[in-house]
């Protein structure tokens, strides 16, 4: 077992090094670059040359990569080219915003999706079921950015129920403790800030929740329908158990297994949806950071750190899954 873990860890290191080299070279070969963004419209060839030299972009790419790796192994991802802030600080500011949005979206998706899927299955073929199927089809197929703009236009410009963007009303004083504004308001008893953060959160969360909601409804419905036909449900009914017991213990509990797996998968998918949602609502999370770092002048250090960290998480999760297989299935260990 230990050999398996060591081998996989070594593979992990090799994978990350290869990935970091690919990212490094790819980013530096994209058209445009930070020099243009830093110098703005006043860039003359002399100024450009000066800055290129100062930034070390005139050195061979392998030398640049070597210097980059030297810093990364000490945990130093450098500073944002645009703001000069350490990349770790930039990321730690953006991360809570994305997590807050993703959690809110998942609460909506699961809180609505599971009951709706269950009800649709119970009343199969009736109006609610038909409506649910049509609704989920729409939810899955509508592009997130389009829905975002649509919702934003209607709710913020036509009926003015929600604010168009941001995480808090401009100028509202709040104490930033964790970076999760709703939570911070509760912790510091600044309840108006908490309510305000929630008010700003609703529309982006609904937008982001659309796809997972639709998927969860459909999976729950299908799963409940499967379970409804199981012998043990019929047996439970024949035994004369109360409906509530049958629903809760026998149907829902069994039907939820694939739903939980789906929720796990959808949580990962939320992050890609967050890029678009955050852009629409000027949210200020990782998604906004990615788009700003690309369009706002190729902020190499920030982009490298985000991509590397995402890759690291992905690779580590894969490793853990593989290791868990090894625990569960002895044959994997032998292989």
């Amino acid at each position, binding site marked *: 077992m230990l050999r398996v873990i060591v081998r996989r860890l070594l593979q992990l290191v090799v994978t990350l090094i290869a990935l970091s080299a690919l990212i490094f070279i790819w980013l530096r070969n994209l*058209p*445009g670059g*930070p020099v*243009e963004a*830093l110098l*703005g*419209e*006043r*860039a003359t*060839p*002399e100024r450009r*040359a*000066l800055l290129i*030299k*100062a*930034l*070390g972009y005139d050195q061979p790419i392998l030398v*640049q990569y070597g*210097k980059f790796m030297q810093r990364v192994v000490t945990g*130093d991802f*450098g*500073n944002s*080219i*645009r*703001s*000069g802030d*350490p990349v770790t600080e930039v990321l730690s*500011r953006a991360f809570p915003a994305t997590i807050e949005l993703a959690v809110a979206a998942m609460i909506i998706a699961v809180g609505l999706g599971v009951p709706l899927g269950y009800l649709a299955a119970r009343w199969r073929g009736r109006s609610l079921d038909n409506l649910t199927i049509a609704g989920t089809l729409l939810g899955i197929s509508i592009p997130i950015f389009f829905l975002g703009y649509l919702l934003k236009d209607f709710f*913020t*410009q036509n*009926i*003015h*129920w*929600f*604010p*168009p*963007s*941001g*995480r808090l*009303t*401009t*100028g509202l004083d709040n104490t*930033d403790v964790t970076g999760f504004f*709703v939570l911070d308001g*509760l912790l510091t008893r*600044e*309840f*108006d800030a*908490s*309510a305000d953060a*929630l*008010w700003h959160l*609703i529309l982006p969360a609904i937008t982001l929740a659309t796809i997972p909601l639709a998927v969860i409804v459909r999976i729950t419905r299908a799963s409940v329908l499967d379970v409804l036909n199981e012998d043990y449900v019929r047996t439970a009914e024949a035994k004369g158990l109360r409906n509530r017991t049958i629903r809760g213990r026998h149907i829902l509990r069994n039907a939820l297994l694939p739903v939980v797996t789906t929720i796990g998968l959808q949580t990962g998918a939320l992050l890609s949806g967050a890029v678009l949602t955050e*852009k629409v*609502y*000027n949210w200020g999370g990782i998604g906004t950071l990615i788009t700003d770092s690309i*369009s*706002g002048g*190729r902020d190499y*250090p920030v982009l490298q750190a985000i991509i590397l960290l995402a890759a690291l998480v992905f690779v580590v999760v894969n490793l853990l899954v593989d290791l868990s297989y090894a625990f569960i299935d002895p044959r994997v260990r032998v292989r």
Partner: protein
Amino acid sequence: MQVRRLKTAVALAAVAALAVGAAGCAESERDGDSGEAKTGGTFIFAGAGDPKNFDPIFNDDGESFRPVRQMFDTLVSHKPGTAELQGGLAETWEHDPEGKVWTFKLRQGVKFHDGTPFNAAAVCFNFDRWYNMKGAAAQSQMIYYMDVFGGFAKNENPDAGKPIYNKCEAKDDGTAIVTLNQYKGAFPGAFALTSLSIASPEALKKFDADTVKQNGDSFEYSAFATTNPVGTGPFTFGGWDKAKNEITLNRNADYFGEKAKVDKMIIKIIKDESTRKQELKAGTVQGIDFPAPADRKALEGEGFQVINRPAFNILYLGLNQKNPKLKDLRVRQAIAYALNRQQLVQTKGPGGAKVADQFMPDTVLGYAPDVQKYEYNPEKAKQLLKDAGAEGLTLNFYYPPDVSRPYMPNPQEIFTVLANDLQAVGIKVNGVPRPWNGGFKDDVQQFGKHDLHILGWTGDYNDPGNFVGTFFGRGKVEFGDQSMTEMFDAIAKADGTVDDAGKKAAWEQVNRDIAAKWLPAVPVWHAPPAIVVTKDVKGLVASPLTDERFNTVSVTK
């Protein structure tokens, strides 16, 4: 009303009764303003991007200058709403006949935000600081200093030039004498550059302002630049909350000039243009900059104040003489005659735009009313092409579809109209759309891959050299021909002329010759960039240089 109801409902669901009360309080504060104009309150303006930092000398872009301009003053400033010079921290200034020794009579009784006095020693400290700046990293960030003063006491990079600054002497508290190694036409206008704002020497020292550390491929600025900028301006620095994207500026009650009407100004950074517009409509910000031309009428119709700044910019069609056909003046003139610029202005120009016949606005010294004008004449264009043996000419036309600039708010539409005009006289146009920071600037200004391109400029200060000198003062890849020495020499001579009358005559002749003899590009239009504020904002004076100060602004509800 609906907003409040929903907000209250949300609060109830989330944090129960206490939250409702608190939210209600917040609302009642917002609703409690009287309908009369008053001093106080908060003015919220939407910025389009993050400032780089707040040390004026290390900045060169509009988003950084917006907050910096509120906190700092320059020796010379501009009369509100114009590009004309007036006293700033210096009440008057004069120079010797050679234009090398500049004497500034300074305002008395002015204090920096940290309470230290502003005087000639502070002025000299700033000039000496710029001149003696050490480190390649720091020097590479001083874009405007390099533009104006050429080089440093010790150039850390061989590409830097010979310094124009020589020394600064504090004759007494109220008199600073700046000596230059040579005269330059940029003066005195350049003394009004936001980059050359005067900062508190004490704060510069205390917060280690000169230290710009390089970490990998980025720069780390000092505490002065990031959290403790100290100037003399009408607002003091309140903070930059990066999680909320808000820069807060507080009213400076001790400001020597017109004190700010509002207690606080917040610059809310919203990078998406349509979101800025939506925030304006929702009333959550009270001002936005550079609305799309297509939105202006609608915004006016909805009751917003769309204020056109006097145009202090130029859009031009660049002609790359690397293409042998374009080296022929007749072909370049044919292109100029082929363009129906009047129609372009009427159909695609922002309100108030006008056709340009030279590369500077008519408010700049040296504008020549009698330059050769290329009125729309497709027949003449065809004839010139025939005479030059350039019939059936094919040209690659580069344009950046992804940006909006004050002088070029709608590049795609401008390209389409110009390309149609050229095709109408038999020139085949290959449109090459390239992202601004993903090929356009590299291909046009570094590699010269194009034949034609659209680009422009907003003036920094009222000086012909800042327009014509910037474009045509030396060989540039953008225009292809590095050997137009006659033009470069004429521009250098005009720029080095000290007396006003001689300077005016020299620049007028340059403008005439550019239009008739050299024609390295075709001037297209001067487009007034707009700034939009809600109807409850009063007192905003829009600047042709887009360098507004918001101390005159009040907000009524």
